[in-house]
């Protein structure tokens, strides 16, 4: 899973958001490391939707009241939640392995 896909899923795990809000959340989550620009953001959203990981909210009732009508809101689907969990575990395991390998070993000169 690409970093930006993971970050988008993560952002949507906290709340249902629209495009610009997703971009801002992603920037915040990644501590400024990842900034999303329009075409890549919507391109990624399309492909995540295509994979069934997120879905568009078409029912106005679910929309927060203060947002205008035009914006499309996205929500994490059940497979999306699962994929996020799986990916998080995978990343966690990866980090653990990496940490154990990168420990400074005794007996070898630095």
């Amino acid at each position, binding site marked *: 899973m690409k970093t930006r896909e993971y970050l988008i899923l993560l952002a949507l795990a906290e709340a249902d958001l629209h495009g610009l809000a997703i971009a801002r959340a992603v920037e915040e989550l990644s501590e400024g490391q990842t900034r999303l620009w*329009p*075409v*890549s953001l919507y391109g990624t*959203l399309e492909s995540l939707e295509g994979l069934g990981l997120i879905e568009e909210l078409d029912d106005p009732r679910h929309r927060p009241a203060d947002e205008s009508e*035009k*914006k*499309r809101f996205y929500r994490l689907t059940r497979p999306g939640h699962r994929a996020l969990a799986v990916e998080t575990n995978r990343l966690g395991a990866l980090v653990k392995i990496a940490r154990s390998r990168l420990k400074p070993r005794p007996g070898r000169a630095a």
Partner: protein
Amino acid sequence: MNIYRLLLRLAPRHLRHKHGREMEAMFREQLADARRRGIGAAAAVWLHALTDIAAAIPRNLLDRWRRRGRVGVPQERQSLMIGSDFRYAWRSLNHQRFASLLVIGMLALGIGSTVAVFSLVNGLFLRPFPFPKPERIVYVNETAPKWNLDETGVNYHDYAQWRRDQKVFEAIALYDQRAFNLATDGGADRMQGASVTTDFMKVVGLQPIIGRNFTQEEDAPKGPLVTLIGEAVWKERFGGRSDVLGKELKLNSRVYTIVGVLPKAAEFPGGVRLWVPMQGDPNTNAQSYGATGLARLKPGVTIEQANADLVRTQQVIFDTRDKEKVVTPFARDLREQFTRDFGTVASTLGAAVSLLLIVACANVAALMLARALARRREMGIRLAVGASRARGLRQLLVENVMLSIAGAAAGLAIGQWAIQLLITSLPDQAPSWTTFTLDGRMVVFTIATSVATAILFGWAPALHAMNKDVRGAIATATASSTAPIRGRRTLWALVVAEFALASLMFVCGGLLVRAYDRVRNTDPGFDPSNVLTFTVAVPGVKTPDDASGLAFRKRLVDRMRELAGVTEVGLISCAPVSNCHWGTFYTQENAPPRGPNDASPVILNRIASPEYFTAMGIRLKEGRFFNSSDGSGGPDNDSSIIVNESFAKLMWPGDGSAVGKRVHAGSGPPAPNRRIRWLTVVGVTRDLKHYGLERPVRPGVYLPLPLGPRSANTVVLKTAGDPALVAAAAHAAVREVDPEIPAYDMKTMDERLTLSRSLRAAYSWMLGVFAVMALVLALGGSYGVTSYLVSQRTRELGIRVALGAKRSDISRTVLKGSLAVVSIGVVLGIAGAIGAGRLLASLLFGVPPYDAPILTIAAASLAATGFLANWLPARRAARVDPMVSLRSE
């Protein structure tokens, strides 16, 4: 914002349709955020957004390609069909193989020659010197208009004054090229070197690889004998070992200690292999000019300021030694100085090659246009059966790109090859620090130009056809068989332009070739056939006085006389066309008193043995040549001299014979109480082109050998047969006389003359080739266009034949139209050429720009070319079988 909306059209269509508004809104917010942080941030946002869109393009294409066929809409609209585009393109190019090769060839010729010549110009003019901050280095010299000298060389005393007083340079230095005899195990080698002042390395900004620079003490008069060697000498003679410091070199029979090694970049102005300190004496007031100055400007100082400051420092000298202000210092941009002689040549070549590129582009345009027009029918049919317009355009684009790439590749190969050829044809003339390689920017520019032309003109008619509705497109494509008026007019305009430019180049090339021929046939004033010349380098310690110098030369000449095949042996201090000059001043007896502003031209001074004149084949105008008794009184007594015609005219204008008249050395009347050494003219020679066939002759004087035997170092051998056969024997004979003295610069006079012409030969030849290439391009272009037009008229011509027109009528109809177009082009071109010839005047060596034979030849060749280009298609038209042509529609 609207710009962003436009840019979004490049984004995947489905994204745009669904999210376009939101994407715009998002970008607007991002931009607004960034604006608050400043203009830089806003620019960064734009850049990111552009990259964002651009990054989506390949993915978009790939996705579409992958998805082709899976979507319900017709294939044509959804997929890129790259494979089939290339297949179609290949098929259609292959089908019109001749036309395709023609386009590729034209592109290749244009690209190749442009790239080669611009690389040459780039190497000469645009590439920086190999020094740090080279733009701040200036050339410094002195000028003396009254002596008829643009550059006198720098006087050390003047230099010392500038160095003390100047305020504009970080450092100022002198260098003077010198040659050394380097003693080796097997004898002696001749090596180019330079004497430099301490600051030289500071000026060029280079440091020794190992060791150190000269110190101030080493650069003082009678300082120690030390030398810095170049990287090349270090590697060749010392194997690049670091223990070279402190080692000794025997130069000119004196022992020098090596104190350092300089990098290759220091070998300025070319060929310098070792350096010694100049050790000039600022306190002597000697009237000796000859060194060259280099200086590094302080940051922010302009050349004008540097010039003003130099003249300011010179004021002290104007007040004391040079009250007439004869010699004035100046500073000049270093590159300008070293490219002066090449300026007109380079701009001429540049202009010629730009024209050639334009001709090539016009040509490609015409051919592409013709191709595209011919395919209107095919395009129309494609549209009719449901192809999208974009598809058709893309198909043409793929074809044009394929043609362009092939043309560009062939062009680069030609360019690379042409550069090699150019380098070999410019032997010793180009400054040796230049390097000629394909220049990346130039390659990109040239290829972009020609490829853009190909694509643009390949597309234009298609766009035109596509813009109509489908029915219209088929209608035009099928019903009318002749090209639309607009397309035809463009074609004819292109042919006119091609012929105009081709005749312009043909005339200019012809004029230059003719000028070269005129130079080649110029009488040099001596007989170059069967003359071998070489120089011996006799170190001062070997012949400390004139008597020993004379004795050594007598031995040398006697030994040379014994060589088989040698008929005459002469000695001269400075042979013609050998790039040497020694100037002094003379004043005639009873000269009118000279005003302070009167000119006093420098006289070319030479020392000659009696046999020199016959060996060199110099012609006598009146009087006699030297005999062995001339000058026997030595340098301090009266003597006889021989002068040239220009000297006689300068000293005694309109005064009959110069023989018997007397002059003395020095400028102006002699000091009253000093004994005058009178020099009596015994002979007047015809003028001789000492500085080259194209350079003006200076007044000159020959002094007999005993007056300066130690500077007469060039041996002139007249031989019975091929002089080159004597060369090896001459080398051996010199070694026999003294093994420590090398003979170098051994060349026949024919070789020297050829060498002095080689630059002109090179560019005249190149322009000649360009002219022929332009002709070939015009031939190809015109042929292509006429063939196309004829093929379009097949039906019309068929009808005419069917109605009883004769074959000759048909070919006449075809020829008449195209020849009219060709002649318009030729007339325009020749008119332009006469104008352009005026600009070339400085290169034409007196050939008038309206030279009748050249204009006639040009008009005839171009007319013949035009006829040939049109006659072949016309003949084909005449062979049209009415049945076939009518059925084919």
